[in-house]
């Protein structure tokens, strides 16, 4: 066991971890931040996407020890200070960008990472960026639509399913 300390959603968090403890496991089990979902645990689905030092990573494929000293952002830190949904989250709700919601934390974190680098992505760029985020419910159209809307673009031309 060794101690790791990181900033998670703006607050300092420490805990004892084994070498093999995954970041996803540390967030969920040590910090009780269970919004980060583990869908596949094999680096395929993207439900576990969080930001480490501002970059989207699959937290099931990173060791907690590798995040020692890092600045981590999870879905729990995405809402506005007054508790209301942020722009991306609200757009997911408004455009039915989720059904069961399992993939949603990863989708929202990936969307946030995309919009940080590319504030007005095209539909094709959104689909390409979400290559590592799998959704088994929505068929993706409404997720793409929500992200377009969150970036302030007209979504009337995108098909709804």
């Amino acid at each position: 066991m060794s101690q790791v300390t990181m900033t998670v959603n703006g607050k300092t968090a420490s805990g004892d971890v084994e070498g093999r403890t995954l970041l996803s496991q540390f967030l969920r089990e040590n910090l009780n931040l269970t919004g980060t979902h583990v869908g596949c645990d094999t680096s395929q689905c993207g439900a576990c996407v969080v930001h480490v030092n501002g970059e989207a990573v699959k937290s099931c494929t990173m060791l907690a020890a590798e995040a020692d000293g890092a600045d981590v952002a999870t879905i729990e830190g995405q809402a506005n200070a007054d508790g209301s949904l942020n722009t991306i989250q609200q757009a997911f709700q408004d455009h039915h960008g989720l059904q069961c919601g399992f993939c949603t934390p990863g989708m929202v974190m990936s969307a946030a990472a995309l919009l940080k680098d590319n504030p007005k992505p095209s539909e094709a760029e959104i689909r390409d960026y979400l290559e590592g985020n799998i959704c088994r419910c929505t068929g993706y159209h409404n997720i793409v639509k929500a992200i377009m809307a969150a970036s302030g673009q007209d979504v009337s031309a995108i098909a709804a399913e």
Partner: protein
Amino acid sequence: MYNFEFEQPSTVAEAVAALADEDAQALGGGQTLIPTLKQRLASPSKLVSLAGIAEMKGVSIADGVLTIGGGATHAEVAADACAPLAALAANIGDPAVRNRGTIGGSLANNDPAACYPSAMLALNATIVTNAREIAADDYFQGMFETALDEGEIITGVRINVPDGANYQKFEQPASRFALVGVFVAKTAEGVRVGVTGASEEGAFRWTEAEAALNGSFSADAVPAAPSADGMISDLHGTAAYRAHLVAVLTKRAVAAIG
């Protein structure tokens, strides 16, 4: 995953020393190794993370030479390398994989379907380690086999920026790895063609195509598909299909270079 100790040295020398321990293994971006550990296909007693080593970072171009740190992520290569290699890196896996996975890790692993090996062969790259420099032609030694010694670390890669180059990847749609990938480069030493995903021997140079393209650099000059003998055959594609793709993708790459 079996448990292991975790170390994060800040210099190559410290990492080499840490890797001298029996059963110690290097950790690059973990995008291959962590899934491997989860399946208990490897059980190192100690992982030595290379992520804290500043001298292994960075991508730069000076005097026609591209230098990439062994710890540079695919995202960093996509942002800062010369265009054809940047485009290759920008299409590895997905954004989260590219933010962690490194060129050193990919080359050390030498997956038969990985993208970089074809580019290293076509670009006549030099693989730089803590101990020596290895020409790409000597480095790849078959599926998952390389010239690296136990505990040897890829600290960087050096490439003469080509006159023109292009990578064509035919994606296996589920894994997003290359079913077949072909990298064609016009270099000072002539045209070179690197192929990944096709052969049971791992990445290779298609020398017949190189000879033909040195004569006439046009898609029509690309020879008929190479022999299917020794090509990979699996549920995603037969050996003959892969051999066919090698020729098709070579033509597309040549056409793209123009």
